[in-house]
Every structure is written in structure tokens, then in C-alpha cells.
């Protein structure tokens, strides 16, 4: 049990997918203007990363390894993730229109989110078993969400500040992201 807990903490804080591994930066800048949208995006990401890493793990274990085709991993993952996201979209639209309305707009954006692919690959590289894969993916996604929401909160406050002209917009966003990453690096000593 402690092992899973450690895995969780390391994935959320120490090896934060956004701030320590720098994956998934486009939604980090793109949908972080408002906390509410950031929250929606975060939920969608948790959902998709957890499910897709389950499938990618299985595809490696039962398809690519037996056929000795590990080198096709990346390209196969892309296909699987894209299919999955599409399917999830179709599925929730039918089953829960309300859920679709909250997550719907973000799903197509996630198809091309490198964090999703990144988490799947990390799972395989670290040679996790199924349970570890599940916990790690979920935790990494939560870490993504945490960073995104924190960042959106900061950017919301920026909107009220008197920012020098050259720094407005993306430039300040990137500087802030850097500082936030620096702060997160303090967690390094935790484990």
C-alpha cells in the first residue's frame, strides 16, 4: 500500500508531468485563462490518461511483446489513443449528455496531448505491472490537473495587475510557468 502512496506522491508532486517532465505544455498555456475551464480540462485529462494507459499497457503486453515488435510502440500508441478518445467522445455523448457538455469540448484537444502519450510510454519504460500502471497514470494526470488549475488561478490574478506591456500574455505565462516549476522542484527532497 505504501508503495502505491509513494508512487502517487511522486507522480503528483515530485515528477509532475507538466512541471518536472515538461509534457503537455500546449494545454498548459492554452486553457489556463480561467480556473473553471482549467478544471474541466483537468477532469477530462484524468479520465483519458487513466483509460488510455490501461489499453496501451495491454497492447504492449499482449500484442507487441509476443510479436517482438516493441519498436512500433510509439506509433501504435498514437493510433490507440486517438481511437480511444474518439470512442469515449461517442460514448459519453450517448450515455451522459451532461458529462458530455462539461468534458466534450476538451476531448478532441486531448487526442493530440503529448502528456497522454508520455504517461503511456513512461509506464512501459519503468516496467510497471498493471496495478502500478493504473495508479501511476491516474496520479500523473492528477498532477497535470493540479498544475493546470494552480496556473490558471495565478493567471486570473494576473489579469488584474498592471503588467508592463512587453510582458503581457504568453511571455508572462511562460515566466510564471518557469517559476512554478522551480517551486515544484522543491518537492525533490521529499522522497
Amino acid at each position: 500500500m505504501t508503495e502505491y502512496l509513494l508512487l502517487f506522491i511522486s507522480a503528483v508532486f515530485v515528477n509532475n508531468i507538466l512541471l518536472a517532465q515538461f509534457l503537455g505544455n500546449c494545454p498548459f498555456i492554452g486553457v489556463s485563462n480561467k480556473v473553471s475551464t482549467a478544471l474541466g480540462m483537468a477532469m477530462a485529462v484524468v479520465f483519458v490518461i487513466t483509460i488510455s494507459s490501461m489499453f496501451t499497457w495491454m497492447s504492449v503486453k499482449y500484442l507487441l511483446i509476443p510479436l517482438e515488435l516493441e519498436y512500433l510502440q510509439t506509433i501504435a500508441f498514437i493510433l490507440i489513443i486517438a481511437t480511444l478518445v474518439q470512442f469515449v467522445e461517442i460514448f459519453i455523448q450517448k450515455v451522459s449528455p451532461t458529462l458530455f457538455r462539461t468534458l466534450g469540448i476538451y476531448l478532441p484537444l486531448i487526442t493530440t496531448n503529448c502528456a497522454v502519450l508520455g504517461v503511456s510510454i513512461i509506464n512501459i519504460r519503468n516496467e510497471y505491472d498493471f496495478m502500478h500502471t493504473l495508479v501511476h497514470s491516474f496520479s500523473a494526470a492528477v498532477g497535470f490537473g493540479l498544475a493546470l488549475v494552480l496556473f490558471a488561478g495565478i493567471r486570473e490574478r494576473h489579469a488584474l495587475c498592471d503588467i508592463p506591456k512587453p510582458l503581457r500574455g504568453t511571455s508572462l505565462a511562460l515566466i510564471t510557468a518557469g517559476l512554478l516549476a522551480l517551486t515544484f522542484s522543491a518537492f525533490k527532497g521529499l522522497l
Partner: protein
Amino acid sequence: MLMSIAIAAGIMGAIGVFSAAFLGVAGKVFAIVRDPKVDELEEALVGANCGACGYSGCAAAAQAVVEGRAKVNVCLLGGAETAERAAEVMGVDVTAEETPVATLGCNYGVDNAHLLFDYRGIKDCRAAAMVLGGGKVCAMGCLGLGTCVRACNFGALRLGDNGLPVVDKDKCIACGACEASCPKGIIKLSSTQLRIAHQQESTECLAPCEATCPAQIDIPLYIRSIAEGDYRQAITTIKEHNPFPLVCGRVCPHPCEAACRRGDHDEPIAINPLKRFAADYEMNLNERILPNRAPSTGKKIAVVGSGPSGLTCAYYLSARGHEVKVFEAMPKPGGMLRYGIPDYRLPQSVLDWEIGGVEAMGVEIQCNTALGKDISLEQLEEEYDAVYLAMGAWKSRAMRIEGEDDYPEIESGIAFLEKLAKGERPELGDEVVIVGGGNTAMDCARSSLRLGAANVYLLYRRSRAEMPAAVHEVNDGEFEGIQYHFLSAPIRAVGTDNSLRSLEFQRMRLEDHGGRPKPVPIEGDIGNMKVTNLIAAIGQGPDLTALGTMVDATKWETVLTEIGTCQTNREKTFAGGDFARGGATVVEGVRDGRDGARAIHLFLNGEDMNVPENYLAKPPKFTGVKGGFEVLPTDTPRVEVPVIEKSERVSTFAEVEITLNEEQAKQEAARCLQCGEVCFKGHRGKRS
């Protein structure tokens, strides 16, 4: 080598085919039924999926339009061209679709506003609003730091010299970004359709006059428009809340003038004569200035009674695209405006033009059709989507005196006035006595003078100060020659051979019980006067017999309705005007008509028709002018409304008052302080 490439390609191909097949099957299994219109509409939209419309992509926007949640002009990027294509798909007329425009709810820049403190913090309204709501005394004051200006992506806003945002109407595409960005809700999208359905709220900046007007007309705006010479804008503004400006400009008791802020310092603005000026401008132009009609909705509404309340309701429902039919028992429409109020106050030709405006809005009026005789409420509820009842107060109250029913020379006020309205000119004797102190009594008395009666007496049981009739009416009547007998109540009509000779009356005194003084008889003090005609005008009430027990009534025998929505106990049936209030005024009937139209529209759309959270049922208390400011006097006093010669007044039914001329109107309009809740213009001095 070749082999392994082939295997890799094969496997990848297989995964691809499998994925495609899987998605294909899933798409079939989880298919949701879509209105083909949605696809067609999606084609018609730009397809940029930009989200500027507020929906998640074009597909969602198309869905919203089909479900009626959005208008065909939803796509901001595509503009008019796209709207036209979308309208074609939906089969509606796009030309009638009106785009709202951002409108500022605060008119007072740094020079005019009362300041609480000098805000020097971050130059952003949202930050300023966190500091005690900003630097202005008024809670609804614009902070003027231009957050909305920065929020606008289309360059439609800029900060003006006085520190208030200025809207460039041509550039505004109604995206609502400014509205969403303003922390105080001061800048809002506004359109004719939104304004005619608007009910005043306590969180808005309202002028004292505007908040007191039962019809909630934007008085400062129409007065400003007159001062600027834009009479078209003036009449448009009035008609957004009152389709009877010619009538109200002549007969309204104008409570607004009593509330006017300038009235606290010198004399109130002649608000009502200015309304009449704007209304007469339209009539003399001989051109109908009407709001855009929304595209047809296919809903049908029946209105019963063609008085001001019924016709107002019909007018605004028609403006919102519904099909309205008015049923009227009398041979001509207009209600009490035609059969009550005499020609010397409201000529029938003027009334005809005004009703013509309601018909031009698309309302159909069917006369000679009475509810309870030719049609029934059940039948109307069956055939129409909603019903609005405005059958007025036409039942005269009896005097309950001895001999009341015995002589042909005794009649009720409204019966007398109805005869006059139909063009009859009854012969009166020399001694005409009117009983009552309200508008009807005054109209009967002044009409009797015009019919040539030598002596016209008016008997009222209280004193002059308590008369419900408008003060200027009472004064005008006296000037024309009415003789008042106050503190007198009739007790017996005496006659010989079926012909009325005299009236015995009881002298009264007033007892103070707090509130309105109560008349009590002075024991034994009984007077006697010679009478040839006796007209009883002591009040009217609604006649509910046509409805039986179908609608709930109040203890005053009026229809019971919900405040602000006019709904009765029957879901589909609404009621207003005198029918729900008892004898009231034209402008209150107009208010009910518009409230009813708003509620019916929402009801038919299946939306919440409750009044807004901060609904202003009564005008708020105004605190007067706050410290440091002083109302500047004007060079000219309040205009005198011109009247015709006295000799002509008492011998004919010609209209007594004359419309202001252009110069008078402009001069009077310039006196207006352009008030808000706290701030106003035309002052000297600033915060110390």
C-alpha cells in the same frame, strides 16, 4: 529484413483497420438521433469552431439554434451572410432579427459623479471593485477603468474623455465579452426586444421620474433626445414601454412629475407635455415609428377588451412575433379612452391614430364580440395558447339613496359619457348635479357645462384636498364654472309625476383617524337643492359575471393576479388593467399589459416567468441631492401649457390643451437634470 517490414506494416495496418471498424460499430451502436436540420445548419455556419458564440463549436451552436436556445444570427464570425443562410435553413425571416448592442448603465463621468474616495490602485475595474465597490458613492457607478474596453476583441469600445466607456454601435457584434468582464454589471447587451420585456430592478441606476412612472419609461433618455432634436429617438424610447403616448401625453396623472428632482428646487420638468410633443410629432409626420417585429413564432394569443391594457399587451406580444387577436364587446376599440374620457381632453381622431399604431404592429381587433355572450373563456383557452383579460371596470356603483331608480333624469356617469362618445348631445336642464369626486365626476361636470347647462354643481362628501381627481382638473373645472359643494352627501331624490325636482343632502364633517379622513354626518344638518339632472359618478368596478367562478377574485370584486406577471389562478389566463385593479389609470393598465406580454412570452417559450430577483414593485425612496452639489437654476421657468380661449372651452368639445411647439419643447427639455439614482447633471460644485 523485408519480412520484418512487412510484418510491422501488416500489424499496424491490422490495428488501424481494427480501430476503424471498432469506431464504426461504436458510432452505429451509440448513434444519437440528430435533427437533420442540425447538420444542414452546421453546413451553413462558418465551420471555424472558434467558440466566439459561446457554444462549444459550430455543431453545438447549430443544435442550440434548432432547439430555439439561440437565434439564427448566433455566428459572430459569419455575420449577416451566415445569418441569412441559417435563416434559410430554419425558414425564418432574418431581416427582422435584431442584434443587441452593448449599452452602458451609468451616465456619470468624473465631473458629475459623487466620489467616495480617490482610487489610485491597479487600473482595472475588477481590482477597484474589490475596494469597497470602487470609488463612487453610487453602488451602480461605472468605475471607468476600462476593463470592458480591453475585453472587447472588436474595437467597439473606447474610454471617453469623461472616463466612461463609449460604444461604437457599428463595430459591436454583441459577443457579450464586455458584459462578462464588468464586475458591476454596468455594461450590458440591450436591444428593443430585451427592453420591451425589461422590468426595473433595484440594482439599476434609475432617475426618480423613471422609477416612479408605472410604465417604466426611460424618461431622461427621451427628454435628452428632445433636447437634442432627435424626436424620432424620443418617440422610439417611449414606445418601448408605452404604446399609448398620444393618450398618456394628454390624460396621464403623471406621478413622475411629482417625483422630479428639479421639483425639489424650483418646478418639475413638464414631463408629460414633452411626451405629448414627441407623440404628436409622430402623428403629424403621418408615419408609424414602430419597433422591429421579431420573426413569427406561430403562437396564438387572445386578448379580451380593447382598452389601453388589452391593446398594450397585444402590441408587445405582436412585437415579439406572436399572432394576437383582440375581442371587443363595443362597436369600436379603445375602452374607456373612447367611451369614458371626453373629446375635449382626448379627441377621438387622436385615439383612432393611436389604435392604428397597434394595428400596424400586426394586431387584429374584432369588435362587437363579447366574452360571456359570443365567446367563452374555455373556448378561448382551447383555441389559443394564452389569454389576456382586460375588460376594464364598467359597473357603476349605486348611490344607495331613496328614489335613485325612480326618475329618468338620474343616470350613471359612465352611461352619460358613453352617450357623448357616441355623438349624442343630450338636452340638460338648468340645474345639473354631479355626485362624486373622481375623474369621472369631473368629466361629467365639465361635459355638462359644454352641453349648455346653466348651473353645474358637484357634490362631494369629503373636502377639496381629498378629491381623487387630478388637481389641475379640479382647478380647470372651477375656472370653467363648476360650483363645488364639498362635505355633502346625497340622501334622497324627490320628484313629482315621475320627474326629478330636488335633492336632499346631508352635510358632513371630517374625522381624523390617521390616513384618509373619514366623513361623518353632522346630525340634523340637512340641505336641499333644486335639480333637473342628477349624474352619479361615485366609482366603478369590474363586472365579473361573464367569468362566473372560473377565475379567483379579490374581496373588492377584481380579478386576483400575481404581481409582475398578471397570471390568474388559471395557468393560461392572465389579466390586468382596471379589471384587476378596479378603477385605476391608463398608465397602470399599460404597465399590466407589458408585464402580461412579458410573462405570456416566457410562458409560451417554457421559460421561467417569475419577476427578476431584485424586482422593483414600488419606486424606491430617493434621498435628494447629496452634499457638495447644488442644482443650478435655469434661465427659463417651467413652460406653461397653452390652452384655448375660455369662451370656446365652455361652448364646444374642442381640445382644451395645445401641444408645445418645438421651441418650447427644446427649452423645457434643457431644464432636465438627466438624473440617475444619486448623480445628476446641471449642478454646480464638486466634492470638497
